[in-house]
Structures are given as C-alpha cells and as structure tokens.
C-alpha cells in the first residue's frame, strides 16, 4: 500500500503524489472514511485546465456530493477510468486510487501543500 507519509495534502482532504512534472490526486483515508460508501466519481475531462484551488470534479457517496479541488495549476493529462465502474476502490485503497493527474505549470505551488503530519494535525483541529 502506498505510504501516506510520502504524499502532500490539502486541508480539503486531497492527497497529491508527484512523479516528475505530473501530480496525481486522490482523497485521504480520513476523507473516504467520513464520506462513507462512494458510489460515483465524475471523471474529469482530459485536457481541461485548472488553477490551484479550483474545483475539478465531484465524488459522490451515498450521502452527498463532495467537490475535489486542484492542488496545483495545470492541465489534466490522465484520469482513472477504473473508478467509473468501481468507485468503491477509493474506499478500499484510498492512497492508490488516484482520480486524475495534472501536468503542473508551476511546481513551486507544491510548497503550499501540507505534509502528512501537518494534515493529520489539521484533521485533529477540525474535530
């Protein structure tokens, strides 16, 4: 299983894994736990462009829709098509099931993201 200690996080519960100039984005174990059974992932369009902090797509649990925000600016270059048929992968393997990947236009934006430790702290504060 992918180790969350190596990932970057947003307060809005997305994780980011960097491979070269590409940032893979998913949601944290805590977020999937809070959302409950995930039943639908709106797969974003490849080539759509987003600014850091902009809403990219939605994932839906039985209960409600939750927006997913871009951790960094750039263009969507890859989506996890598997989630269309099996959205529950996010519940089962939150740190492996990425939702989309962005080709970064400004990798320095990564510095604004939280470390795993900082993210854990932000959850505790939230609770």
């Amino acid at each position, binding site marked *: 299983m992918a180790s969350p200690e190596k990932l970057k996080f947003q307060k809005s519960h997305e994780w980011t894994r960097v491979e070269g100039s590409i940032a893979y984005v998913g949601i944290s174990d805590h977020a999937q736990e*809070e959302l*409950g*059974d995930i*039943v639908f992932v709106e797969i974003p369009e490849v080539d759509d462009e987003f600014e850091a902090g902009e809403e990219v797509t*939605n994932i*839906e649990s*039985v209960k409600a829709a939750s927006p997913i925000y871009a951790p960094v600016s750039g263009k969507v270059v890859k989506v996890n098509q598997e989630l269309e048929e099996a959205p529950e992968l996010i519940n089962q393997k939150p740190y492996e099931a990425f939702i989309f990947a962005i080709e970064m236009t400004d990798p320095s934006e990564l510095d604004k993201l939280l470390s795993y430790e900082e993210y854990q702290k932000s959850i505790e504060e939230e609770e």
Partner: protein
Amino acid sequence: MLKKTPLYDVYKDYKGVKLIDFGGWELPVNFENGIIDEHLAVRKNAGLFDVSHMGEITVEGPTSEEFVNWLVTNDVKKMDDYQCLYSPMCYPHGGVVDDLMVYRYSPDSYLLVVNAANTDKDFKWITEENEWIKNRNDAPTIKNVSADYAQIALQGPKANGYLREMVGPVVDEIKFFRFKDSIEIGGQSCIVSRTGYTGEDGFEIYCDSSAAAKVWNTVLDHTKDRGVLPCGLGARDTLRFESKLPLYGHELTQDITPLEANLSAFVKLETEDFCGKDALVKQKESGVPRSLRGCEMIDRGVPREHYKVFSTEGDEIGYVTSGSKSIMLDKFCGLVLIKRGIGLKIGDEIEIEMNKKRKRAKLVKTPFYKQT
C-alpha cells in the same frame, strides 16, 4: 447543545458509529458496516433503527375524533380502535404542515407521531394556530409527550420471525397498520405497530424513554448473530427513497400540496370538512400543476436535491426533491417535482442539470424497488 435520544449512550461507543447533527439531534448516520450493508440487511434480513427523535402528541377527550379528522386530510372517522393511519396535515392553503401517523386507541384517544424537526411547529399549529381550536371551547386535551417516548423500528422480511421468538405468537396478530399495547420486550411494556418507513414488513416499537436501552439491547442481542444490524439515518433515507416514501422538507413542504406529491390516496376530498379541503378541491378542479415522478439516469451522474429539471426541448419543468443511488437496482435515481399535463410518460426522457451540464434521465415507475 444537540438533543440526544435515550439510546444515545447505548450506541455512542459502538465501533465505527458516525454521529451527525440531524435537525438539532445528535444521531447516527451509520454504524460500522456502512449505509449499503445496513440497507441490504433491511431488504434481506432485518435492521434496527433508533427513531426516538420522532415526536409524539396525544389527543384525548370527547371531541378528539372530530378534531383529528378535521386536522388531517385522510379519513380518521373510518378508523378502528388499535389502527394506524398515515396522513398529511395541511394548512388552509393546501400546503403541508407535516405528514404523520395517527394511532387510534378509541374515538376519545389518539396518538399522533410526527416528524422530529416539526414537533414544536406541529404542536403549536395543533394547539393554538388552527381555526378549529380558535373557534371552539370544547377542545380535547393535547399533550406533547415526545420526551416520554422512545421509538425503535425493527424492519425487514425477517422482523416478524425475530419478534415472534422474543414475544410469542401474539406478534402475528398485529396486522399491517394495526398496533397492540402492553407487549413485553425485555421485561418492558411496549406499544408495537406493524408500520415502518422502509418499504419492508416490520414493526415500530414505542416504550418509555427509561426502558429504551433495555428494549434495544434485548432485540439486538437476540438477533445480531444472525446478521441483524443497527442502522442509521443514512440507510433510513436510502430505504424510504427506494420505496418512494415522502420525506418532509423534500417531497412535502408548506409549498407543495399532497395532490402535487401524488398522495391523493391519503386525501379524502369527498368526506366532511378538513383543514385545506377548499384549497385542495379547487386545485383538483382547476388542474394540479405539478406531479412527483421518479426518474433513472441514462447519462452518468447522481441527481441531488434542488437540481433543475428540463424537458428535452430545453424548458425548465421542475426540480429534484431527493436523489440517490438505488442500492437494490444499482442505478442512480431521483424523485422530481415537475409540471403536470405536459404529456410525459414512463420511459420519456428529461434532462437534469448537474454542475452546469445537462444529463439525460428517463421517467420510470415508482416505487423504484418493491419487495417481490
């Protein structure tokens, strides 16, 4: 400070329980297994719900029957003793104050079970604000006894068998929408009705608040080895949705009449006067403007409350009142309140706007799911 039911202390430490603020009440949305497993338990086996947040109002005295019959749209005068009746309760303009269950002990004694979030509003409406009460000096005695009562629902195809094991064959004598009192569960005296909010066979059990923990634990300890799960509000909502049971605040509001919500079976326009009758008769004569229909997504997406609905020609025709994944059908479904009389039939397409995109859906028969 959130209100808590008498069962809060029992399940607050259950592993995996997720508590939320539901209309001012701290209640479980789901337990360890999650909404889908809880939903399936109720459809295939049985599930146990704490619904003690529901409000209970008693009406007693010689004018009780006349008064309750005037308050609600259904025909209370036809009821037998120990019968339950579902009914909307309307304002004079035909919009809905609440939808409720009427339990009749006798023509002089009724128990009204109302929605938790509406209890205070309903009590005020029933005791002070309606025309009958304002114009009469022989009103029945009306009490809000919500705090005295706990309510536990045991729902599912196997509920009858489990309860029979605990209570005896007397359970089989409680027919659909009937109730008995003085039924002992775990040594506690309960009112048991064959009613529910899941579309399954099952029971709603009322007991004194101080007896709630004993009753809950007795039922759960007796059945949990056979897969009966405690269930939260999440499954309660997905179950009622699949069975097209209306939820106040969604399918019914003060701005939606019961005729628009297709509840005309519970509105007896041919009987004597009741609150809202004139407005509803008028609405029926001039044409009910909207209709509550069910739809299923053709394109991918989940219809959610308030999403706008369009015809395939692009005209806005209404909105989504509730939407979810139907767990039994494995499809995304919605209840939509749309214009009536525009020729839309089962199978016809409509469009629902989601995140600025129009997605195709088609009208389907409701309830979405029915136990066969």
